[in-house]
């Protein structure tokens, strides 16, 4: 009898102790997916629309133009020189090297550049997204009305008519910028080119020789570009690539009565939009409902990104940018500090004091592949780039080796008050955010990405990719 009771007592005690080990029953703190669900609701997040990869005639014309150095004055630089597939559509350099450079990507060096390009090459992902309201680090190309395709650009009223979108408007500017693709009066093409491209005068640059200010002669330069490509100028009608480009043009624009620079810009923009659209990232998969698409660290990073890190205040929307302008206390490149020619950023466009030293928020999709970072590429790793946001004042009152301040007083004062308030993120939390940023990268293979690169271009010139 006693044995029987002991047995029951033991069972009772065992149940008590076992339940003690789980004192909460079913109640648990909010799960990580629960928090992410809340984020999705609060921020209204949804996967980015996946643009179909569709090769049209317009795409083929745009592809040829994008990779063909024929568009550059000295026949040595194409759009792809600074927007390389191998470098996440950027170029791996802190400051881009257009004309006068040699080599590819991060190994490209300036051989005979008259002046340095002042900014880091921006990536080209998702530039057709409706959120994209400005181009360049200082936003000097802006949409003023997306309904009527009105743009504000440095060309003012001189902007060619018939541009399809902001990307098309933007694509005209490297063509008329001397240190990007245009080159300088008196330049000739390399003697190492194929015979038809050897030692040829840079007729584009000659168009602005009298004033020395290329943008004042944009119209003449555009005409010159059309003449070289399509042979509109009778002198060059016999060039071998004319027929190829004409055929590409007629297929792309069967209704067009005459060729204009807007057709070129629109084709380039179309190629960029189709070729460099983000298709499928782990983050988009997660938003589409696949909860296993993200690792627990990435999920933690997303929670920090949208919450405590407050990254989403500026890096908002599907492309992770508000396309607005902020100063985060990035130090200038050495040459600027030494020459006291600080980069005033947006101020150069608007003239408003509040815009001094502000730069456009960069979108973050594929950011993991577009090092170095910031408007002048002064930060090599994404970890350091994120960390800089946590310690934006770290360069204040510090000296450059030249004896000048790394940040002058105005630059220090311009830093966004949101950052100056201080973010409390430790290194482990930054690593989680990096994991999240990695989940924004293209999910597809290099091979798939490389299908945007043509085997050759109509001019027969060599090109980088």
């Amino acid at each position, binding site marked *: 009898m006693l044995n029987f*009771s002991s047995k029951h007592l033991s069972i009772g005690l065992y149940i*008590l102790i076992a339940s*003690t080990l789980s004192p909460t029953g079913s109640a648990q703190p909010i799960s990580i997916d629960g*928090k992410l669900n*809340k984020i999705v609701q*609060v921020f209204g997040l949804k996967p980015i629309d996946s643009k179909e990869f569709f090769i049209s005639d317009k795409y083929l014309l745009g592809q040829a133009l994008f990779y063909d150095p024929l568009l550059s004055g000295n026949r040595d630089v194409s759009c792809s020189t600074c927007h390389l597939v191998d470098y996440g559509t950027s170029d791996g350099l802190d400051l881009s090297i257009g004309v006068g450079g040699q080599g590819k990507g991060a190994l490209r060096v300036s051989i005979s550049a008259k002046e340095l390009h002042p900014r880091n090459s921006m990536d080209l992902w998702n530039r057709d997204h409706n959120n994209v309201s400005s181009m360049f680090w200082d936003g000097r190309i802006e949409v003023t009305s997306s309904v009527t395709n009105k743009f504000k650009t440095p060309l003012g009223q001189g902007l060619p008519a018939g541009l399809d979108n902001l990307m098309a408007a933007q694509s005209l500017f490297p063509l008329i910028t001397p240190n990007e693709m245009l080159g300088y009066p008196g330049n000739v093409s390399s003697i190492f080119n194929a015979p038809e491209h050897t030692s040829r005068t840079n007729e584009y640059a000659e168009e602005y020789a009298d004033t020395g200010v290329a943008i004042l002669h944009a119209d003449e330069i555009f005409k010159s570009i059309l003449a070289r490509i399509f042979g509109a100028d009778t002198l060059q009608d016999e060039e071998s690539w004319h027929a190829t480009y004409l055929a590409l043009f007629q297929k792309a624009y069967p209704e067009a009565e005459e060729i204009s620079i807007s057709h070129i810009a629109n084709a380039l923009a179309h190629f960029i939009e189709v070729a460099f659209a983000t298709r499928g990232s782990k983050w988009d998969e997660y938003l589409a409902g696949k909860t296993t698409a993200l690792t627990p660290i990435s999920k933690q990073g997303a929670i920090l990104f949208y*919450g405590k890190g407050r990254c989403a205040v500026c890096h908002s929307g599907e492309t992770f940018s508000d396309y*607005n302008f902020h100063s985060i206390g990035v130090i200038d490149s050495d040459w600027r500090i030494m020459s006291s020619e600080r980069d005033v950023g947006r101020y150069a466009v608007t003239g408003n004091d509040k815009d001094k030293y502000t730069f456009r928020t960069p979108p973050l999709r594929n950011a993991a592949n577009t090092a170095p970072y910031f408007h002048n590429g002064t930060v090599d790793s994404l970890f350091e780039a994120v960390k800089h946001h946590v310690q934006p004042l770290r360069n204040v009152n510090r000296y450059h080796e030249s004896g000048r301040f790394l940040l002058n007083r105005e630059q220090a004062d311009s830093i966004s*008050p949101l950052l100056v308030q201080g973010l409390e993120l430790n290194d482990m939390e930054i690593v989680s955010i990096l994991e999240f940023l990695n989940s924004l990268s293209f999910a597809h293979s290099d091979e798939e990405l490389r299908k945007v690169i043509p085997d050759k271009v109509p001019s027969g010139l060599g090109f980088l990719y």
Partner: protein
Amino acid sequence: MTWNNIMIHLPKLNTILLGAILFLLATQFYLVYAKPFFALKKYAEIYGSLHLDCESALDHENLLVSELGLSTSSLEQLRKSLAIEKLSCDERSLVRNILLSAGVEEHQLNVIKIDQELNIL
């Protein structure tokens, strides 16, 4: 039932009473000592860290009050970020309820909070 019958079943009754008393003692031990102990062991650290996160989120709400000269859209985004940051307060409440319902005393929770706050000083 006669007196004799009672005397016959007395040993059995003793055993039942002993069992009941032991059960009550064990239950009391479980409720008063074991359950709070294990609950604290499991949640004290989480509670402390949620407390800090929540307090810091509440502090950050002042950012909205001061506005910082942000644009309307940035302020809207900041409001959303702070809402997410303040999830830690909901979580803290949840864990607090778990601990209190497990029998942890209020003063023990205060000790955890103070410990955490002192740790970051």
